[in-house]
């Protein structure tokens, strides 16, 4: 049963990759970022203040979304940084270059996302 579930997840993952390949081919144009430098900028320039050091999300005037292991394609991510919706401040290239954004993107992509809450007894009270 356990193996079956694992296979299901693999199958779903492959399917998701296939769909993403078709739908978001432009995401492949994302520049290769430096996750280490991205972390430095993420912490220095205040990204963490709303989104958390672990990319776990948080709150500004309203909820600030989770960024850890983001599913956003790079262009969408960059678009939100440059011309954000809601109350997120816009970061112009005067404060964040395209390379900085790519580095930040690489960093948040590298962050481990959520895991199963069932594995954490404290979350099952």
């Amino acid at each position: 049963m356990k193996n079956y579930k694992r296979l299901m997840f693999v199958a779903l993952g492959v399917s998701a990759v296939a769909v993403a390949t078709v739908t978001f081919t432009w995401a492949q144009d994302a520049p290769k970022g430096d996750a280490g430098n991205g972390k430095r900028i993420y912490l220095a320039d205040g990204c963490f203040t709303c989104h958390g050091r672990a990319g776990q999300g948080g709150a500004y005037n309203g909820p600030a979304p989770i960024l850890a292991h983001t599913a956003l394609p790079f262009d969408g991510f960059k678009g939100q940084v440059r011309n954000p919706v809601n109350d997120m401040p816009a970061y112009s290239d005067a404060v964040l270059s395209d390379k900085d954004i790519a580095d930040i993107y690489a960093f948040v992509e590298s962050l481990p996302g959520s895991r199963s809450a069932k594995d954490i007894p404290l979350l099952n009270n």
Partner: protein
Amino acid sequence: MPKRRNSADSSRRNFLKGASLVGAAAAVTPPIPANAAPAPAPLKAPVPGPLQTAAETLAPSNDPVNQTSSGGDFMTDVLNSLGIEYMAINCASSYRGLHEAVINHGNNKPEIITCVHEDIAVHMAQGYAKIEGKPMAMACHGVVGTQHATMAMYNAWCDRVPVLVFGGNIMEADKRMPGAEWVHAGVDIGQIVREFTKWDDQPASLTHFAESTVRAYKIATTPPMGPVFIALDAELQENPIPDPEGLRIPKFAPVVPPQGDSGAIAQAAKMLVEAQNPLIICDRVARTPAGMAHLVELAETLQCAVIDNVGRMNFPSRHPLNQSFRRGLIGQADVIIAMEMNDLWGTLTHFSDRIVRRSRPGIKPDAKLITLGVRDLYLKSNYQDFGRWQDTDLDIAGDAEASLPALTEAVKRLLDDGRKSAFDVRGKKLAAAHLAMVEQSKTDATIGWDASPITTARMCAEVYGQIKDEDWSVVGTTIRLSWPHRLWDFKRPYQWNGVSGGAGIGYNLPASLGAALANKKHGRFTVSFGGDGDFMFNPGALWTAAHHKIPILYIVQNNRAYHQEYMYLVAMAARHGRGVDKMDIGTTLKDPNIDYATVARGMGVHGEGPITDPRDLGPALARAIAVVKSGEPAVVDVVTDPR
């Protein structure tokens, strides 16, 4: 009105008498030649001084030094007649008469709670009232103490909480000692707080005091509730009661809160029953333990969604109809009933905090809006706590808790089997969505689970893991800390008591202590989360907790910043395209880091931390909880990620 014994006057009178005698003696004594040899010392008793001479030769003055009654005794009786359990004070001469009377005439009843700042005293009263359901008193010192009390009174005003505030004063100018009594006195000290109190008075006699205090109590506890202020003349407190037989304590009968008009209630019921997606939004509905049960009954009858703004313990967090973290439902509702809302427009509107501030409605254009509450029945103009105007379709003036049973009955009368069946389907969908929301919250909480600084989700889960089997009560939270309501099972009326009201920092620590004081006699386990910024406004409150042995587990969510302001500064810098990496200046609490556990220990409170490793948090909490269960307060300093 009794007259104040004026020691300054009597001293001056005696001094002048003495001066006259000295002058008279000088007039009859022959002059001594300059070259005369010194005379030997006389072998007799020295000549009495002028004061002694006057005391021995003049008739006794009307300057009594003892008294057998005082106005303060009567005032104490009035307070006790109202069942006031506690009086929080920072001791001061302008109400020394009442203070002494409470201790000796009242046998320390109401019990004096010693505070090191008036802001602490009023906030304690605010937190206490929201748990105990009745006011406690506080006293402050003339214009200076009253000014210290103002921020807390404003929070209580915005939070619609009854607090009975007394301010010492010396009304008659000729009775004030030179110095402090002048700079601490005012013609109308209630003016300081009038914009954010429901009522105030400055009684000029004991009868006046009694009637005004009972009236103030009644006004404070009548919805919409709020703080009241009574100026206490020192003469009235301190001097003998001139006519004890003429005094009486007025009879207090609590006001029965008003229900909404029956016709309007019936109309609201019809609108709710006929709606496809009705929605209940609530803020400060439950003012007694019955309130939550009434709201649950209405929601279950309608099988409709409830969005709780958590101004009070309105609705169980794990109730299947609780959709508080699904705000998108506001935009899907066709009929919304909003109850005792603090900021209805803000709840129903999308607002952009951008260069051009814009807003757009968050509700459907054809959605019908019903309001039920008493908040708008008492408003003032200067402070803008009433929020922006919101169009409504049916505006019912009536206390929501008092009106809920009638509304539920009206809904039930309109139900038939067809509607019940449709409602059940709706309820099942909402229950499934609620369950998914809870599971999503748990999953979200896993992100950064082992990180340092500790995530707020981990912090809250660790605390809940250790107190969930206690009879717990959460009485404070930090800004936008939603994890307890996302993860914990709030289901009892005292398990939550709302937030500050006016968002004035400095509320959380002392208000939590006031709530813990109320919980103490019920044997409940009190826990509170407070920000580090809030902590530093009133750290002296911890001494009060230690002194009065108030058991509370106080978790300092230490993100080492005034974090909301930090984020705002980053936004400002980003807007200008400059210096986003410098916004920690003026917004953070570091260099040096504050050690809150050491601060706590310095006040006589058990302190744990700073905890930076999540693996250390559980053991630290266990030690602190053992202290709290022994009847003492404990502070745990948890170094956390921002939010």
